[in-house]
């Protein structure tokens, strides 16, 4: 009995086992330019982490390394404790060792993109059921039912039979969030979800994201929305020139910026 308790205690105390996402010492170069210079991050279940930084700070690249849309040059990524296995290619670059593993993990990490990236030849409803039926192999009827419920939730059920190019940016992004939710993901990755929107459409998307945060979803959000970072997220991480400049509790970070860079960064936003 005591052995079991000890094992359980050990499992609980090991950070890798608890973390929904754990990134260690991530590095990435584009040509000569080193975009990520050893970034580490840990997201636990229910965390909403806002990742801030000026353009070129590496924040989007970091997010895209987590689901392997970009291949990191070195470092490790764990999702729910599972290490994404990498190998060396013949030209010396790192590449995924097992593409099936990557596909399986990606299905747990639904991503929401800056430019929505809905499949334009499918209706909204088809967009929501495509991956759940084909990737997760769930029954179509069940997926359709869930999709309709999700579209009601994000407030665009009336548009379920529209094609994405016929909708506003805000509606498309809400459809994209619903598409992400339809995967029942363990973690949601948001890559500047409001940056391509007209200012008057930002609010409708942020409201949906706020409600997701409130129901305890685990979210990594690359954003320029300071209000969201400060009021909604549970943690803020500030990247500067490919490194984690500072990170911490949002209210504290904004009230007392821990570094001159972060102070400068938020000062620019308040102008």
């Amino acid at each position, binding site marked *: 009995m005591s052995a079991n308790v000890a094992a359980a205690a050990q499992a609980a105390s090991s950070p890798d086992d608890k973390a929904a996402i754990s990134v260690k010492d991530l590095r990435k170069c584009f040509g000569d330019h080193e975009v990520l210079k050893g970034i580490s991050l840990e997201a636990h279940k229910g965390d909403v982490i806002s990742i801030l930084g000026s353009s070129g700070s590496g924040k989007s690249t970091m997010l895209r390394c987590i*689901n392997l*849309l970009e291949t990191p040059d070195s470092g490790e990524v764990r999702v729910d404790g599972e290490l994404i296995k990498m190998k060396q290619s013949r030209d010396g670059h790192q590449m995924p060792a097992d*593409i099936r593993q990557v*596909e*399986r*993990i*990606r*299905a747990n*990490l*639904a*991503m929401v*993109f800056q*430019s*929505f*990236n*809905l*499949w*334009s*030849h*499918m*209706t909204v409803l088809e967009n929501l059921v*495509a*991956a759940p039926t*084909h*990737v997760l192999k769930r029954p179509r009827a069940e997926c359709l039912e869930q999709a309709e419920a999700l579209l009601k939730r994000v407030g665009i059920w009336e548009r379920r*039979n*529209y*094609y*994405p*190019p*016929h909708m506003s940016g805000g509606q498309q992004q809400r459809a994209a969030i619903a*598409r992400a939710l339809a*995967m029942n993901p363990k973690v949601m990755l948001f890559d500047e979800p409001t940056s391509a929107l007209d200012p008057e459409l930002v609010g409708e998307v942020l409201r949906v994201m706020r409600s997701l945060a409130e129901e305890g979803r685990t979210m990594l959000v690359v954003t320029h929305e300071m209000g969201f970072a400060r009021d909604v997220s549970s943690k803020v991480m500030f990247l500067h020139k490919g490194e984690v400049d500072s990170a911490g509790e949002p209210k504290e970070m904004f009230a007392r910026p821990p570094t001159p860079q972060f102070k400068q960064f938020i000062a620019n936003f308040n102008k």
Partner: protein
Amino acid sequence: MEFLNDLKDQVSTAYELLAAGWGVQLLWGIGWTLAVTVVSMLIGAVLGSLVAAAKLSHRGGLRFIGESYTTVFRGEPELLIIYLFYYGGTQVLTSVARSSGSIGSTDILNMPSFLGGVLAVGIISGAYQAEVFRGSFLAIHRGELEAARAYGMSAWLRFRLVIMPQVLRLAVPGLGNVWQLTIKDSALISVTGVAELMLTANKAARSTHHSLLFYTVAGILYLVMTSISTPIFEKAERYTSRSFTRPK
């Protein structure tokens, strides 16, 4: 007055000749022309998508093969390719058959004329279709392909659910052009002895000495085939691009 009488004679001769059996022959010719065109388009579609994939590949060797294919088969006269496949094919088949002893040392094993013809026209059609498919693939919004990867789709699923439907949509207008080219190329395989429209018109013209009549009729029939296909492709284009044009 005499001119009108002459025209009347001409028309009645034409009617008699067509009614005497040449009309039915020409209809069969249309059938064979369409058969050659459809089969060639299908061969071309398979080859064209493989060649397009090769041209888009990251591997230099595959890209080279794809580039060479489109350069050669778009750059050579169609008739030369057809001769090469038909007569060249016959020569190869004959020497193989002779050396294996299945025919006598003076016998000739002909390349089947339909097969040789559609292979040649299909290969040419494939070169043009490859360019159409490649252009269509490049026109797909990159973000949609990225989303497909991000949602865990395998390469095959990405192809089936995202790439193929969009390539087809974008390729329809271009394929309409290739279809017209292929209808016209099909006339060239009359040299291999397939009784399509061109060969039939040729035969009729020679045996009745009414060249003007039969070539004009054949010309009209080709024009009917190519012009009927235009609205069909336009309709297909409207259907496949409905997500971009038709607000509900």
